[in-house]
């Protein structure tokens, strides 16, 4: 089967970020998406702590210790960017002002439930940050994650086992095997990478997958 690298997964999401979009990229793999958005598109990145227009990492001698992203990495501000306080930043999220959020996930359900803030581990103390606000607020929530966990367990399930971040919030799932839309009819495959077949991907998925709409029907 064809499995995309993390870099290629980020590159694939980047193709779907349109010119002019206001976008929030989650910590981890989603942050890489910014590296692959084509240069002819202007995209404005939001950071939950209070930035619109997040730019790349600064030169070591140009670091501003206050200018960090949600992952606490040093960043810069692009011309036209601005700062605001946390309450206004989350108003942008909940108020539906962000076009797209890209988040990682532990699990996604057939109805678009997202689980990405806690596992069932009792040893780690909990932390939630801005994940729940982003989940309910962004106009389109894309999940970027590997199709299966390290132990090969499916991460796309009929129902999430881990505690939910938001119910019915995910619009599209980008994995290393396929792109899958969450629709009213269920999970519909939008794109299969390489020669991957629906049957192969279905076998690695814990929820029913519907075939791509554009797939030629057998006459």
């Amino acid at each position: 089967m064809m499995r995309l690298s993390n870099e290629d997964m980020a590159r694939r999401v980047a193709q779907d970020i349109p010119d002019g979009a206001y976008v929030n990229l989650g910590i981890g793999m989603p942050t890489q998406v910014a590296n692959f958005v084509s240069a002819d598109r202007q995209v404005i990145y939001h950071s939950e702590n209070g930035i619109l227009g997040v730019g790349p990492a600064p030169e070591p001698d140009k670091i501003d210790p206050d200018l960090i992203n949600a992952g606490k990495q040093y960043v810069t501000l692009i011309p036209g960017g601005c700062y605001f306080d946390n309450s206004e930043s989350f108003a942008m999220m909940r108020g539906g002002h962000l076009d797209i959020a890209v988040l990682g996930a532990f699990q996604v359900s057939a109805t678009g439930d997202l689980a990405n803030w806690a596992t069932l581990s009792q040893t780690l103390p909990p932390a939630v940050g801005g994940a729940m606000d982003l989940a309910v607020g962004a106009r389109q929530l894309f999940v970027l994650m590997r199709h299966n966990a390290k132990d090969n367990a499916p991460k796309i399930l009929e129902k999430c086992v881990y505690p939910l971040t938001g119910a019915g919030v995910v619009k599209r799932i980008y994995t290393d095997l396929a792109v899958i839309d969450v629709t009213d009819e269920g999970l519909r495959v939008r794109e299969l990478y390489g020669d991957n077949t629906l049957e192969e991907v279905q076998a690695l998925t814990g929820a029913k997958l519907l075939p791509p709409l554009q797939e030629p029907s057998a006459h």
Partner: protein
Amino acid sequence: MINKVCDSLKSAVADVHDGAVVMIGGFGNSGIPLQLIEALRQHGARDLTIISNNSGVREEGIASLLRDGLVRKIVCSFPRSAGSVWFERLYEKGELELELVPQGTLSERIRAAGAGLGGVYTPTAYGTLLAEGKDTRIIDGKGYVLETALHADFAFIKALTADTWGNLIYNTAGRNFNPVMASAARITVAEVASIVEAGGLNPEHVVTPGIFVNRVVAQEEQQHDAA
């Protein structure tokens, strides 16, 4: 004559009592009033409730308050991060109470307190563990959770420049929770890099109006061997 300038960090925190509820601005190490926190640690008030986005890493900031056993409870959105050893240690031993609040709900509960509201209905956390036991309501077909206002006795915040009336401007993303916390405490103390006379800030640039600020204190020169 209005002059909110405090002559020392020590005097700026001198009336923090045992059992006080203290908001501390900042997001990670951005816009965090590290010198006020150190003054609070030396002041030694105990049994504190700390409201802040994070819980400090290594021996720095809020982590030093935890290490010294001054904190009973923390209200926080993301207490666990790389290096938050004191939070993890005390939490695992059951010596620290945690109220986990989604980040936007944290700032909105604080804003509600500052704006005189009893609380807000937010869609955040609806249908999740963090909404359990809370009032919920369907408004126009969408689910919301009632989150109550979060007040404090003190807010310790960090800004770039204050004037003598307590008007504040900030540095880049360092404003984060600071403006909203300023509005929600009985006593708000701002640690700043510099202080100018009233009239010295462009009124169009003021982010936090001085009505929300009781004391301003200039950062003191310090050796760079914190903790």
